[in-house]
């Protein structure tokens, strides 16, 4: 099946600000009218980092939020590409290709549970905004990170702020000490209509195990935004393969960029995924 790329477009946007929002988390705000008008929750943009040939490839970033003709992207300066983005100044240009990918299935009523791990916070502000626009108000955010300094600020998940943000850190510096997956129990008792998750693959695997182990009746929409090392972002290089389950329970490769990045968590081959290195290795 060919990906639907009709909304995707190249666009050069003006940087408005690169803001440090806490710890090492940065938010890049760019005037990108096309992307702002067309991005749906869970879709991403391929951003060029610098104008040279190293780094060569664009980097995929979830569209974190849109406001009028601007878009926000959340990242940490961890590699050559993100370091260049972190050095952008207001007035600089950013080259975007997007929106790309397959976003979240939007439900029409709550409650909704969003499970975020680290920079997995990225797609949730736009998702929460869109859900609220559709009248969904009962939204629970479970926010986890390795340490307090790497937690996306609670008030940024929604404007106005989402009422319930339960936090977890691996080192116990804020909120529950442990995995964000361990916060799922109380949230499931509200019989959510949808569970959305985004974070590193091991954290998502832990979320799926927790959901399965809970014994709770789970909603039809249980989706995760996944990651993989990516070449093109639009389905031609076939580089970003992820192990998914076919109808017979066998493992098949699907592309993170066009089949995802949002996948049904029931369709992921979590065992195979857990054996893969993270997207940062490449």
């Amino acid at each position: 099946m060919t990906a639907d790329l009709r909304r995707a477009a190249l666009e050069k946007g003006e940087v408005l600000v690169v803001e440090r929002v806490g710890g090492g988390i940065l938010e890049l705000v760019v005037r990108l009218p096309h992307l702002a008008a067309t991005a749906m929750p869970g879709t991403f943009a391929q951003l060029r980092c610098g104008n040279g040939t190293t780094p060569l490839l664009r980097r995929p970033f979830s569209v974190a939020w849109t406001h009028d003709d601007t878009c926000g992207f959340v990242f940490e300066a961890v590699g050559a590409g993100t370091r260049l983005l972190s050095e952008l100044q207001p007035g600089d240009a950013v080259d975007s290709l997007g929106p790309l990918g397959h976003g979240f299935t939007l439900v029409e009523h709550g409650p909704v549970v969003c499970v975020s791990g680290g920079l997995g916070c990225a797609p949730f502000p736009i998702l929460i905004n869109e859900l609220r626009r559709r009248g969904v108000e009962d939204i629970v955010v479970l926010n986890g990170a390795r340490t307090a300094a790497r937690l996306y600020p609670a008030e940024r998940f929604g404007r106005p702020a989402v009422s319930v943000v339960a936090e977890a850190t691996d080192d116990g510096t804020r909120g529950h000490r442990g995995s964000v997956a361990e916060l799922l129990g109380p949230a499931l008792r509200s019989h959510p209509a949808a569970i959305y998750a985004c974070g590193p693959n091991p954290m998502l695997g832990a979320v799926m195990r927790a959901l399965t182990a809970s014994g709770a009746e789970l909603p039809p929409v249980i989706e995760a935004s996944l990651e993989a090392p990516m070449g093109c972002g639009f389905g031609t290089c076939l580089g970003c393969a992820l192990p998914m389950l076919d109808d017979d329970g066998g493992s098949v490769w699907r592309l993170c960029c066009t089949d995802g990045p949002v996948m049904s968590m029931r369709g992921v081959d979590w065992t195979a995924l857990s054996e893969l290195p993270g997207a940062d290795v490449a």
Partner: protein
Amino acid sequence: MTEQPAVGVDLGRGLVLPNPVGLASGTAGYGFELAQLIDLDRLGALYTKGTTAAPREGNPPPRVAETGGGMLNSIGLQNPGVDVVAAEYAPRWRDWAIRVIVNVAGGSLDEYVHCTQVLEDVAEVAGIELNISCPNISGGLDFGRDPAEAGRLVGAVRAVTERCIIVKLSPNVTDIAGVARAVEDAGADAVSAVNTYIGKKIHRPTGRSVLPLGTGGLSGPAIQPLALAAVAAVCDAVHVPVIGVGGILDAASAQDFLSVGARAVQVGTATFVNPETALQVLDGLGV
């Protein structure tokens, strides 16, 4: 009115590309994604993803890794198989002006012959590019390394097709000109050079290869000078048209290939960076 100079590139057996700029195999799929992003019909040719007799699932990830000025890939020839390409994909090319040249790959001589036969009566297929040089599966590369084997393969495919045969050469050889001469003698109508260079990247925290198979194919601007030297050697060695490919990023780097004697070019990895690169090359060349 002044007559415009002819810009078509005659590759032989009736295959005339409207202009010299094409999209390299493995960087454009079967065209359906890029057709939504750019005006494909302005380009001369689309060389499809390597296509095999049976569907192939491809290699385990990670399949791509970035390097200085380039990228390594180890896709493993993921493709739906030649029957799907012939029956389901080709009809979708019917109204396209761009010439679609199917890149055929295989692990055995019989597989190349079979694929070519399946495509022989498919009207939308403009030509065949024989991938004798994919570094990411065993089998195919052996043909590309040995002039005699390469010639034997091309001879066998020549016997079953009237279509233009372009042979894509591997740079991972001692004497690329010798392989080029062998495939020309065996009946190739044109050659394209080069496929990717075998490369390796180490994940430094672990000291292990990033790519699970250990190595992958290096592409991108990092290889342009290497590819240019190989293409120059091939152009000196053969009389058939040579298509230059390897690290083209813009019109200037494409012109380099034309300057050493290539008749056409393919834009590859740069399409990932900017889907419009090939169109920019076309405009910049002024052809």
